[in-house]
């Protein structure tokens, strides 16, 4: 490690991540041009490990949709879907994808193939409704892998418990049924050794992702969970189960350890360490982050990096001796964790506050996503009872610029930082 120059290693994760993402999308465009079909999947429980053994390109419609927002064309897609009949009050990701399908897969980054199959979990109910749209539009088979979540706050069950075993048997049975469906669809026999290989890569990625998140406890923080973290998240999802993805995470861990050892952070003067709860404001993605960094605030972690990685943050390690059984358990445990970080996140956040020495929490519920947003106001109340920590609650959207008011956001964010500063001054007076 000592032989690598700082210039070569610092920022490598962002550069390589963007490059891998472009390559991945280029391959999708090629597949579309060759009229090859893809597996449509979602970030929470993508099952890329299994799908890759059948050489199916994977399309992440959520990621495609958010890219239209980042590239500031989402409104065109939303309008088209609303003209088709979809309500302004439903998920913006769904609508952007409907318009993408109506445009025969055309997106600002290239083109996506049509679906051969849609494979998705129930981690978000909209996944299910969304796949039904493809079923109607393309006649594509859809397969829901139903992953039961925690039944109540703090009521997680584990191996040996009869309820956990009931869930695990259910997930395993569905995986076996999915394999049969994939064999019929592709005309290929399932290759368990290839599954071991992709799961091995996923193990490296899970381990790396967990370590990267842990390393951001450093002071100063090594990456901004909102901006840099989203790039890493993209690789976590799109390249899951690949050698390139595994290598990327080995490199990323190396970069973060390098930065940690040398005290290299994201800001020249990190003033406030923040935790982000919700989904980013993609229509003004860069500006949204700047509204915080300009005041010395950086996001050290977020629930988004947990749930939108499908629970990869847990670092679950598959047992390659028993790949199918382990894939079922890993899917169950990881997706359940993703759901917990959306629904039962009070404990998650108190742990994060302590581990990352956070100065404040920023809640960002959005119009488009009720899965994430429904309980945030109540969670804030609960968290404020548990911890004496400032919080900010700002609503906008991940897709729809009609409900994003930058001026209003700025006012609220500025006031939040004024409060943080006043609190720090007060603490200095009280504890000289």
């Amino acid at each position: 490690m000592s032989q690598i120059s700082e210039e070569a290693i610092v920022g490598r994760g962002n550069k390589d991540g963007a490059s891998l993402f472009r390559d991945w999308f280029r391959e999708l465009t090629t597949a579309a041009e060759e009229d090859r079909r893809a597996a449509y999947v979602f970030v929470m429980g993508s099952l890329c490990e299994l799908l890759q053994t059948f050489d199916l390109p994977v399309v992440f419609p959520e990621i495609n949709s958010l890219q239209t927002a980042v590239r500031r064309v989402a409104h065109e897609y939303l309008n088209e879907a609303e003209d088709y009949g979809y309500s302004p009050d439903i998920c913006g990701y769904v609508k952007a994808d409907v318009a993408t399908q109506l445009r025969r897969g055309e997106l600002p980054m290239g083109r996506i193939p049509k679906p051969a199959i849609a494979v998705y979990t129930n981690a978000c109910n909209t996944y299910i409704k969304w796949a039904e749209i493809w079923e109607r539009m393309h006649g594509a088979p859809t397969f829901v892998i139903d992953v039961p979540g925690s039944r109540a706050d703090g009521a997680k069950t584990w191996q040996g418990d009869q309820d956990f075993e009931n869930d695990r048997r259910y997930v395993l049975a569905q995986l076996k049924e999915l394999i049969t469906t994939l064999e019929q669809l592709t005309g290929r026999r399932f290759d368990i050794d290839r599954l071991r290989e992709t799961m091995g890569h996923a193990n490296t990625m899970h381990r790396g992702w967990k370590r990267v998140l842990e390393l951001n406890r450093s002071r100063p923080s090594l990456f901004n969970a909102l901006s840099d973290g989203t790039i890493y998240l993209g690789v976590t999802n799109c390249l899951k189960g690949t050698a390139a993805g595994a290598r990327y995470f080995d490199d990323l861990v190396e970069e973060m350890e390098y930065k940690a050892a040398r005290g290299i952070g994201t800001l020249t003067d990190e003033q406030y360490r923040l935790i982000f709860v919700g989904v980013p404001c993609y229509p003004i993605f860069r500006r949204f982050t700047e509204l915080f960094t300009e005041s010395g605030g950086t996001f050290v972690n977020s629930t988004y990096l947990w749930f939108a990685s499908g629970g990869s943050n847990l670092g679950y390690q598959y047992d390659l001796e028993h790949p199918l059984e382990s894939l079922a358990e890993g899917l169950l445990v990881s997706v359940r964790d993703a759901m917990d970080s959306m629904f039962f996140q009070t404990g998650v956040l108190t742990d994060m506050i302590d581990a990352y020495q956070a100065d404040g929490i920023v809640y960002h519920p959005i119009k488009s996503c009720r899965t994430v947003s429904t309980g945030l106001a109540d969670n804030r109340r609960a968290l404020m009872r548990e911890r004496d920590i400032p919080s900010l609650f700002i609503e906008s959207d991940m897709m729809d610029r009609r409900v994003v008011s930058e001026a209003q956001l700025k006012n609220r964010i500025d006031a939040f930082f004024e409060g943080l500063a006043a609190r720090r001054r007060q603490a200095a007076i009280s504890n000289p």
Partner: protein
Amino acid sequence: MSDVTVFSEWRDQPLEEILYQCRELAEDMDFPTVRRWREAGGKVLGHFQVYFPEEIAHAGGMLPFKVRGASVEATQADSRFGSYLCSILKTSLELALSGRVELDVFVTHPICDAARNLAAVWGRNVTYPCQILYLPQNANSQHATEYLRGEYDRVKRTVEAITGGSVTDAALRRSVEVFNENRALLRELYAIKRDTPWLVSAEDAYVLTAVGGLIPREEHNDLLRTTLPLIRASDAKQQDRIRVVFEGGFCEQPPLDLIRAIGRSCYVVDDDLLIGLRWILDDVPIDGDPLRNLAEAYLEQSSYSPVQHDLRKPKEKMLLKRIEDSGAQAAIVTAAKMCEPGLEEQVAYTRALDQESVPYFVSEFEENMTSFDHLEIQLETFVENLLFE
């Protein structure tokens, strides 16, 4: 506990008075029957829309109470939620926060992205247990019944922990019998709606169904056994109205005044209002493992809704079948405001109806809406167009 009577106002009354008492109860936001049940020492299991295997609570001696929102202002609950949400979530929680309804346990389901948050939100605000019943979303898995049987067993253990008693197979079978009778009576009520809709108004049929979620099923069976023959014997005359199916009431309920307004110009010959109470279409077998029978019935003998995914039941085809089976001439395709599954399904419904040239009327509603003039005029125009086409 089944010997406790919580709704006696209708007894020994003529039909009009019975229906009036049912309307009063359905619209009473202090839920007197639940209060009376508790005052008699009974325990209450509140379950959110759409479907819950009430037999399990019943077999444990609890009152299964259908949490379906309410016509109340969500003064306390509003601050627990974000802005872009359906009303039913807020008003349901309001019932708990305001003390209008006291429960011993609350169960919700992952029917939609909003509702699956309810167990967490509710649980942070009350002292009794709150949990999620994970009804299977992969209804097509060969293992779904086995899984659901295990999930029902977990619910049974929850009931046992709350009541301190044991829920035996014999008790479950007795409860299945009670609910089988209830389902048969509701099917009869809907047969009257379908075959002779002039005998029972849309709102009366609705309240006769809705009170089932508020009282013990034995009492509901008594009510329906008494009332249905009176309805059949009514001398109401057939009028020149179009026959419609009302779709979109599977979760949040339209206000009774809206149902009444629709009933003024249409015969509502079928609907999905409170579909959870009518989810299972046939008798659940009595013999064998009762939990397995209930699980199998949920998956194999059931209706449809936008919040259950089953490849065998494409929703738009099921709606067309409902229209055909009921002899309806048109459909009213509604969705509760901010109801994501309902709004998404509207697109599939209207496209299928267009394809089959079935006339339809599209609207949105909210349980707390109070003005219907505009909607009623639009609906009347729609109906007139059909009548004078």
